């Protein structure tokens, strides 16, 4: 009886390791605009992300201020005039991998991610294809999708429509490692 109980207890304490959450603190998020006058690229390499291997939920939190541009003035305008990063400091994505795959088994999977992206305090639902590579101690993800600034309440002045494309191509790359069990 005692042995049995101890065994059950052991199983229970082992359980958190099974509902493993994977974390990435240096996800790379870039967006690219190709317009007649100029190409514009914004790049962040300090986006935060988490992946629940069991429920296949995905979460991204991207600090707007962490985007770097070729021109510092452009970066200032991006924060001050367009994304208003003092009011809305983060872009967030809450989604889920909808495919019937097992993220605990090593391999490379083509997946579809569905979820809500909030930029500039405006939320829109997206579905995009991506890839997931599961290795024994890490998971790497990659996705490319398009967003329209106007979908998120970011107005581009008519004067600058030739400087900025209507569609921005967003690329997301993240490498996750298991969350240490000890930390909450």
């Amino acid at each position, binding site marked *: *009886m*005692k042995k049995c*109980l*101890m065994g*059950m*207890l052991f199983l*229970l*304490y082992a*359980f*958190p390791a099974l*509902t493993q*959450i994977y*974390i990435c603190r240096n996800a790379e998020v870039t967006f690219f605009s190709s317009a007649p006058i100029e190409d514009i*690229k914004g*790049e962040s*390499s*300090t986006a*935060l992300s*988490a*992946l*629940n291997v069991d*429920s296949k*939920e*995905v*979460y991204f*939190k991207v*600090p707007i*201020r*962490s985007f*770097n*541009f*070729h*021109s*510092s*003035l*452009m970066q*200032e*305008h991006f*924060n*001050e*005039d367009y994304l*208003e990063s*003092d*009011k809305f*400091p983060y872009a*967030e994505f*809450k989604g889920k991998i909808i495919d019937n795959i097992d993220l605990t088994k090593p391999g490379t999977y083509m997946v579809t991610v569905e979820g809500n992206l909030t930029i500039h305090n405006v939320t829109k639902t997206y579905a995009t294809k991506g890839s997931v590579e599961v290795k024994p101690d890490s998971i790497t993800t990659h996705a490319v999708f398009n967003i329209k600034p106007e979908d998120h309440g970011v107005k581009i*002045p008519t*004067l*600058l429509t030739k*400087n900025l494309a209507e569609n921005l191509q967003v690329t997301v790359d993240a490498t996750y490692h298991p*969350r240490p069990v000890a930390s*909450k």
Partner: protein
Amino acid sequence: MKKSLSLLLLIFGFVYVYAQDNNLNNLFADSSAQNNMPVIATFKSGILINAQTIETMHKHDLLFEVGHRFGDIGGKYGGSKTFYGFDLISDVLIGFEYGISDRLTVGLGRDKGAANFANVNQTQLLYGTLKYRLLQQTINNQVPLAITLFGRGIVSTMASQITNTDADFKNFKSRLSGVGQIIIARKFSSNFSLELLPTYVRREDVVGPDPKNMFAMGIGGRIKVTKRMAIVADYFLPFRSSQVTNYFSTQFNTLFYNPLAVGLEIETGGHVFHIDFTNATSILENQFIPGTTSNWSKGQFRWGFNFSRTFTIGGSKNKHWKK
């Protein structure tokens, strides 16, 4: 007893498992990576109207600027006959600024100079500036203020006057003037910024008892009204003795007034445009601080504009860019 202890442990185990927060949103709730970042865009350009701001150029950016002050709108020289001052240009400036680093900006320019024919008579001014961002305000208010140091050296290239003025140059040194400012600013909200400018003006050649060393306190502010438009204003309080004031009022029949300016700031991409109204006739500090003799209430204010365009000419500061 042992059994119940085990049971307790069992329950505790369950609680432990479910207390683990699997809600991904909350994982980064405490992320405060952003909070020690510097506050940006306290002002939209390096100048307010008459006053400098704490803003410096970004590294490798080049600024081209033009400043203009017209004649009096009202009073003796204003009105419809001069098209409300349009025909009487009081001062014109053309200059360049370049960001050596994100903190250090150097500048060079030419200014017409506006004589008041009392204590300011120098024209044909060449100037060089140095501006250094000493301290930046942070989002978390650990540093609540921003401080920038500003210095301007000015040389008058005009022919020496024979009469006894501040332009009767005896040697090269007497052609020089200088300005030093400690600019202290705070962005109180995304729509409101305020700054103080303790100012020192040095002039090598002066008229009569006019002091070579002069101090003034400046104050300036910006209120954003739309995303691209703001109301800006600045004011200077020059400190001068009653002996100086009396001398110029009796000898030259001239009274001094404190420079006040209000304007509208419009920003589009790399351009910043100011349309402003001020009683100061000159653009540079060595002239408008000691020598503003026009009075707002007599219609002796003018409209003027500052216009600047930023060019990004240098290489990338972002190491990821070329990837």
